[in-house]
């Protein structure tokens, strides 16, 4: 992975996690989140899986995610995450900033916006 990709990944992990959980009606656990991110990015978004957990815990600490355990203690349980109202608000802000940055960079680099 190039350094540009690494920096992009680091800077966008939060927003892509929030977006994924905002788009998904069911709560998701860490392994599912990683698989969905890889799938959505067509393999571009590939990173060391273990590093998703510090990020999830940090987002939970900031009140952007909420977690709960599914399953009984002593059995194989899963910790699932959902986005909170604060998470939705943060996502909205991050997406607005991303659109602004993206438009500015495209303009600076002479890249014409793709017509949809």
């Amino acid at each position, binding site marked *: 992975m190039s350094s540009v990709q690494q920096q992009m990944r680091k800077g966008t992990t939060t927003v892509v996690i929030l977006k994924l959980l905002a788009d998904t009606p069911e709560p998701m*656990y*860490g*392994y599912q989140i990683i698989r969905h991110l890889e799938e959505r990015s067509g393999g571009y978004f590939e990173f*060391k*899986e*273990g*590093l998703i*957990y*510090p*990020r999830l*815990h*940090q987002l939970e*600490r900031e009140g952007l995610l909420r977690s709960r*355990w599914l399953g009984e203690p002593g059995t*194989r*349980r*899963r*910790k699932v995450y959902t986005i909170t109202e604060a998470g939705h608000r943060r996502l909205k802000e991050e997406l607005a900033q991303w659109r602004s940055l993206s438009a500015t960079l495209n303009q600076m680099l002479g890249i014409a916006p793709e017509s949809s």
Partner: protein
Amino acid sequence: MVDIEDFLRQIQAELDLDRETEQEVLEEIRAHLEESVAEVMAAGVSREEALAQAVARFGLGQDVGQALQTAHAGWATADAVIAAGLPVVLALVLRWLVFAPDGTAIGWRQVLVRPAFWAVALAALLVPLLKLARWHYALVSWGFFWFMTVIFALGEAVRW
């Protein structure tokens, strides 16, 4: 041969969290690794090779452990400050509620009819319940509140 429990111990070595949080973190990672191994094995790979692949994809235990510790740093500290400070605040408020200005205890009946007493009792339960990560801290705070109430209301010898 790579073993999930050995790998978890590498992560655990980097953690300095309360026992319950640490066990939950490790349980979450264990579930991840077990699912990852099962997925690779479903493709016809041996368990040993599947474990090696799962661990390689997961990253170095030391790196993950340090990142987790950083993510949780300060979390437990904030809880500890509230958990330690709340009983002190409760004791001071109770003293104000239970003792008359001349220093005599006003007694159970008078204490229990004061709305301020019940407001404090409610706060003693709700503040830790809403602010602390562990619900049983709230019960400890609640228990401490009633213990102090009994001591102050019944213990005539208690004078501040």
